[in-house]
């Protein structure tokens, strides 16, 4: 079945992964800018990373019939040093007009510190000023509930953000309701040790419906699965849900949210 993986870090994946994803039905991916598993030694390291996201990965994906899009930002894990983070933010305008850039992301919080929150607010303001879609990373494990609350507060404080132009990612059973109730889009991440399984994502859709929800693999350099989205499709189908109900979550919803950026035309 065709699908979009709207959150996957292909810079960390092999070309064989692109091939396997294409064989499983992947028609497009969107890749948020994130932490590389180590802190960059200088803001200039991000210039090369942004070149990789805007120039290299689209070329690597194309032979497999996969459209590659990306998001730009300084990730929350490297936002603890505000001066460093601001230098990275200053690089973004140079790449904002690249044909595969969809918006600002994944911004958010990591350990819920004041510095992270300050840089989050500055990037929300940057997105509002440049009329960009926003993709939000919520913290892991014990930090998720509090971090999600702080992020929703920060978005509300900005006052210039339309809730339907923001996707809050990595929701779980204890955060999904607050995100959907405020009118945001929500992403469920199928990640083996932290976040959701395909079964729990299917449970959440059965409980909350499929409006403004998508699933993604967040495949990266860690223990993760670039084929998590097709595994969710199998799980949802096996429970007796119709093919169009599966498509809604794995194709139509990502297309609806992402098409708010006119550059997005996949799927």
């Amino acid at each position, binding site marked *: 079945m065709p699908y979009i993986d709207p959150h996957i870090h292909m810079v960390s994946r092999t070309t064989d992964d692109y091939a396997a994803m294409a064989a499983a039905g992947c028609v497009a991916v969107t890749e948020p800018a994130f932490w590389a598993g180590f802190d960059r030694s200088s803001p200039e390291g991000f210039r090369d990373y942004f070149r990789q996201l805007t120039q290299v990965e689209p070329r690597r994906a194309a032979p497999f019939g996969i459209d590659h899009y990306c998001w730009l930002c300084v990730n929350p894990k490297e936002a603890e040093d505000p001066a460093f983070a601001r230098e990275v933010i200053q690089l973004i305008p140079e790449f904002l007009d690249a044909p595969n850039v969809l918006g600002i992301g994944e911004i958010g919080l990591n*350990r819920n510190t004041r510095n992270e929150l300050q840089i989050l607010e500055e990037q929300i303001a940057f997105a509002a000023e440049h009329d960009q879609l926003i993709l939000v990373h919520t913290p892991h*494990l*014990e930090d998720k*509930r509090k971090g999600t609350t702080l992020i929703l507060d920060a978005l509300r404080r900005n006052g210039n953000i339309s809730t339907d132009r923001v996707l809050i990612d990595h929701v779980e059973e*204890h955060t999904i309701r607050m995100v959907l109730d405020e009118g945001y889009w929500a992403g469920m991440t199928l990640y083996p040790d932290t976040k959701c399984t395909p079964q729990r994502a299917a449970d959440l859709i059965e409980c909350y419906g499929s409006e403004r929800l998508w699933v993604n693999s967040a495949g990266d350099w860690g223990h993760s699965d670039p084929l998590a989205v097709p595994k969710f499709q199998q799980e949802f189908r*096996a429970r007796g849900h119709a093919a169009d109900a599966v498509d809604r979550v794995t194709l139509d919803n990502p297309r609806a949210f992402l098409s708010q950026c006119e550059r997005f035309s996949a799927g």
Partner: protein
Amino acid sequence: MTKSQVLDRYFLEHRAKLIDLAAFLDRVDRAPGGDNFHDPRLPALREALALLHDGQPDRARRVLERFSDPTEAPLDTAPPAPVLGVPHHPPPAAGP
């Protein structure tokens, strides 16, 4: 899916997960580490286990909430310790 279908599809998988958890707790008991061993992960896990059979719904949400930092204010600096999967300090006991 009917209840029977849910059990047919998932019971063995979750039976195995429960035995894994039992074996994990046995492994912790067997491991050396002293009589005054305190780690917030074990009490959090035991409290979360009690939520599984209290007869109330929304167990997954309530387990996740038990494993969440209960504080609200942003931190002045990042904690030196890595994430544990449970709060470093347990939430205050519920009032009467």
